[in-house]
C-alpha cells in the first residue's frame, strides 16, 4: 500500500508537469511528498515555476494563475484516474481571454472520456460547448431551463 501510494504520487508528478507545461506553455511543476521515507503518513504538496519566473511562493501567485495551476493539477489526477463526470462552476471567472482558450482546449481533450458540466458567464467559454443550456427566471424566483442546443460546431454563430 505504501508502495502503491508512492507510485501514484510519482505518476501524478509526471502528469502534472505535462499538464502544467501545456497550460502555461512552459515552466515546471512537481508533486512532492514532504516525508518520502514515510509514504503511509506523509503530507503532499506541489511546487511550481511559472515561465519566466522563479520557483513560486504559491500564495503570491495571482488569482488567474491559481485557477490555472489548480486546473492543471486536477487534469493531472484525471490522467491517473479519470472521473466519469466533472462539474465546474465559474472556474474561468478570474481567467483572461488567452487563458480561457488554453483551459477549454484542455477540457476539450479530456471531453471524449470525461463528461463535463460547466457553468460560465464568459462568451469565449460558451463557444466550446457541445450542448448549451440556458437558465432563466421567467416567473419570479422560479428557475426555468430555457433550451438545450445540440450545437453543430459549424453553426456556432447562429446560436450565439
Amino acid at each position, binding site marked *: 500500500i505504501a508502495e502503491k501510494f508512492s507510485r501514484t504520487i510519482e505518476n501524478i508528478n509526471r502528469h502534472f508537469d505535462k499538464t502544467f507545461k501545456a497550460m502555461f506553455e512552459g515552466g515546471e511543476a512537481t508533486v512532492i511528498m514532504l516525508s518520502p521515507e514515510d509514504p503511509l503518513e506523509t503530507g503532499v504538496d506541489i511546487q511550481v515555476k511559472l515561465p519566466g519566473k522563479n520557483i513560486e511562493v504559491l500564495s503570491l501567485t495571482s488569482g488567474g494563475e491559481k485557477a490555472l495551476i489548480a486546473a492543471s493539477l486536477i487534469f493531472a489526477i484525471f490522467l491517473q484516474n479519470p472521473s466519469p463526470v466533472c462539474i465546474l462552476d465559474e472556474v474561468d471567472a478570474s481567467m483572461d481571454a488567452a487563458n480561457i482558450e488554453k483551459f477549454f482546449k484542455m477540457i476539450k481533450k479530456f471531453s471524449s472520456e470525461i463528461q463535463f458540466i460547466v457553468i460560465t*458567464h464568459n462568451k469565449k467559454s460558451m463557444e466550446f460547448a457541445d450542448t448549451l443550456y440556458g437558465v432563466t427566471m421567467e416567473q419570479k424566483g422560479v428557475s426555468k431551463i430555457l433550451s438545450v442546443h445540440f450545437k453543430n460546431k459549424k453553426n456556432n454563430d447562429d446560436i450565439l
Partner: protein
Amino acid sequence: MKLRKITLKGFKTFPRKTEIEYKEGINIIIGPNGSGKSNIVDAVKWALGEKSIKSLRGGNMDDVIFKGNDQGMLPSNFASVSMIFDNQDRKLRLDVDEVEIERAFSKDKASKFMINKKRAKLKEIVSLFADTGITSNSYAIIEQGKINNLLLSSSQEKRVIFEEAA
C-alpha cells in the same frame, strides 16, 4: 458511466418538476445572476448524500426546500432530486445498464434515499459511488469560488485527494 438526467422538484428554485438531460462531452450552462445555475450543482451534491448544509450554502436542511416567491407562489412541502446514470460500463457495482438514485426531504423529517426506486440508506448511496470519483465532496466537483481551495489546502488535505486518485 455518464450522467443522463437530473430531475428536481421542490429543490431550491425548482418548485415544479424540472428535468435536465445531459449529453456526452462539454455541457455548458449559462444564465443571469441568481437564476439557479449553482443550485443545480447543489442538487447533484445533495443527491449524492451531502451531509453538510453549509456546503450547500444553507443554514439548516429546510433551506433546500423551495420557499415560495413574493407573487403568491406557495412554499413546497418537500424537495426531491433524482439522477439517472448510464451504467453500461458497470462502474457502479450494480448489474444494471441504468442506475437511478433519488433523495427526498420534508421539513422536520430525515431524508429518504432510493436506488432504482427501492428504499436505500445514505451509506448505501455513498458506498455505491465511493470508487467512481463522483462523491459529494469530490475534487471533480468545483463549486463557485472554490477552485483556489485545492492549492491553499494543507499537505494532509492534499494527501487525501491523491489517495482517492490511487
